[in-house]
């Protein structure tokens, strides 16, 4: 009995030692010399492997960052400035802080304002739909509503609102990795600066048709009337090809354009107070009058 136990122990011990030796030799033989900083950088990464940085994953990003002469072309949008500060500290580089970004859906053609003109009977995929035709609404530019962006988002930040038929972005969960931007065949989604406390103003429409055509397809389409650009005192709005665009870097969040937009295509979000259109219109009126008087005086 006891000899059995002893033999068992002996055999297992010898086997263990032998295998350990083999493992050691193999590990030595196939050892790859790697910059230890790659591991460190990888540890500092969020580990989502989303590809938002343009590399295949966090490890690939780390390898590229270690090799790169500076961090100008390597930025992890998911980890943001905190992560990049850590990476910079490990590598001894400087990093420029970037304004946090967020995905913005630039279409407000809800089912209510943008009626369907035909019925889609193919696969529920925006890519397939876009390949075939302009979509089941009269608007050839807006959201197709099949949720490719939702499927592309790894962070659960996007969801389709069944009532509007449009995707909605959860600011808290969005990491600005850009997967949805790539997935959208209509380029409806744009990464824009999040803005102070999430406040931002943007044109939620991409319809480049002439006013009446756009209006017929969607009641809240941008008709390219240019009122917003005229109203803006910060030179932040450009109207080109029948569509307005707000330059986030110049926008001062005064919301005057939003109040003046005749179709409601301009959206302001996360403002503490609801938009008081009348007050703003009054303010603009007074300002215009004063300007007129000043011009007349001269």
């Amino acid at each position, binding site marked *: 009995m006891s000899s059995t136990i002893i033999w068992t122990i002996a055999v297992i011990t010898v086997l263990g030692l032998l295998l350990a030796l083999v493992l050691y030799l193999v590990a030595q033989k196939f050892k790859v010399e790697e910059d230890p900083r790659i591991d460190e950088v990888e540890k500092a990464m969020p580990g989502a492997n989303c590809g938002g940085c343009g590399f295949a994953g966090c490890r690939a990003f780390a390898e590229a960052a270690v090799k790169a002469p500076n961090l100008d072309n390597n930025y992890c949008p998911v980890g943001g400035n905190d992560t990049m500060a850590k990476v910079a500290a490990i590598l001894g580089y400087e990093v420029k802080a970037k304004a946090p970004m967020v995905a913005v859906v630039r279409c407000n053609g809800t089912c209510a304002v943008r009626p369907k003109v*035909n019925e*889609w009977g193919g696969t529920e995929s925006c890519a397939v739909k876009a390949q075939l035709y302009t979509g089941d609404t009269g608007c050839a530019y807006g959201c197709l509503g099949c949720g490719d962006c939702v499927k592309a988002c790894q962070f659960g930040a996007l969801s389709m609102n069944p009532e509007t038929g449009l995707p909605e972005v959860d600011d808290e969960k969005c990491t600005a990795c850009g997967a949805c931007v790539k997935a959208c065949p209509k380029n409806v989604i744009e990464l824009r600066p999040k803005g102070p406390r999430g406040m931002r103003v943007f044109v939620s429409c991409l319809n480049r048709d002439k006013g009446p055509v756009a209006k017929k397809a969607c009641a809240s389409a941008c008709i390219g009337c240019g009122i917003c650009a005229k109203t803006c005192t910060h030179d932040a709005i450009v109207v080109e090809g029948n569509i307005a665009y707000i330059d986030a870097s110049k926008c001062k969040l005064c919301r005057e354009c939003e109040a003046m937009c005749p179709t409601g295509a301009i959206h302001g979000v996360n403002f503490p107070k609801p938009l008081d259109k009348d007050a703003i219109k009054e303010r603009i009126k007074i300002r215009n009058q004063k300007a007129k008087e000043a011009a007349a005086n001269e």
Partner: protein
Amino acid sequence: MEKLLVSPNPHIHAPVSTKTLMRDVIIALIPAVICSFVFYGWREILLMAVSVASCVLLEWAITKYMLRKPSTIGDLSAVITGILLALNLPYSTPWWVVMIGAVVAIGVAKMTFGGIGQNIWNPALVGRVFLLVSFPTYMTTWGAPKGFVDAVSGPTPLGAIQEGLMQGASVQELTSAFNYKDLLFANLGGSAGEACALALLAGFVYLCCRKVIKPWITLSIFGTVALTSLIFWGIDPSRFTDPLFNLLTGGLILGACFMATDYVTSPMSLWGGVIFGVGIGFLTMMIRYFGSYPEGVSFAILIMNSVVPLLNMWFHQKKFGRK
């Protein structure tokens, strides 16, 4: 017409669906079911009812409560699994053993992989082999038939021969006890589905005519079994059984026609299918001649099922205008 329907081409569809294919397989099994009823009586039908009901119920429950997907029982594949499982068991199997088989077939072999289309092994066969290993007594007890014709009860022909060979008898002596007409029309003992080889073959012909299955898998199994046994029988007829005997016994026809041709667990290409069939035939004969189980079809099919992903990877269709 309110709004135009728009979708990519093609705009029409062949009159075929998973359900119609499965319905055809069920129709093809009807002769075998009738034969098993004739030979083994009401008990066999009851057994089949238990088997089908447990398979369908289990699939419904798993899709509804565990996978939380739309139910897939409408495609009738669970019904086929139930029928095949029952046909693969002795009619005397207790009902609770059949239910355990159904749990293994549907719950383990099919739904754990994600349901129809995802499983690696034929569910009914996994159920059967599980029962064979777990309840060998029930699975090899062939009680006296209570059907409507005089069928002989007793061990399966292959079982009898292996038993006899161990006791030193020669194959010629042992096979002389069976005549081939019996084997073709009414098996002497064995699983319910083996009751009548002709009924199974009729179903196979029906499936081929309806273009539900391609015959090459089945034919290459038959061919390989015949060839392998011909070689061995030619070498030593006193130790090895003859080709016709091997073709007609041990559930080979049931396995080759209905189990090996299961879409999900067989290769898609012609040459993949042929190799799959050759593998099954060869392994079956090896197990029969040299293994400890007298019947090898189930094991052979399951082993070759495991190779299917490789066969699908290796054998592709010939592409147009390419070498």
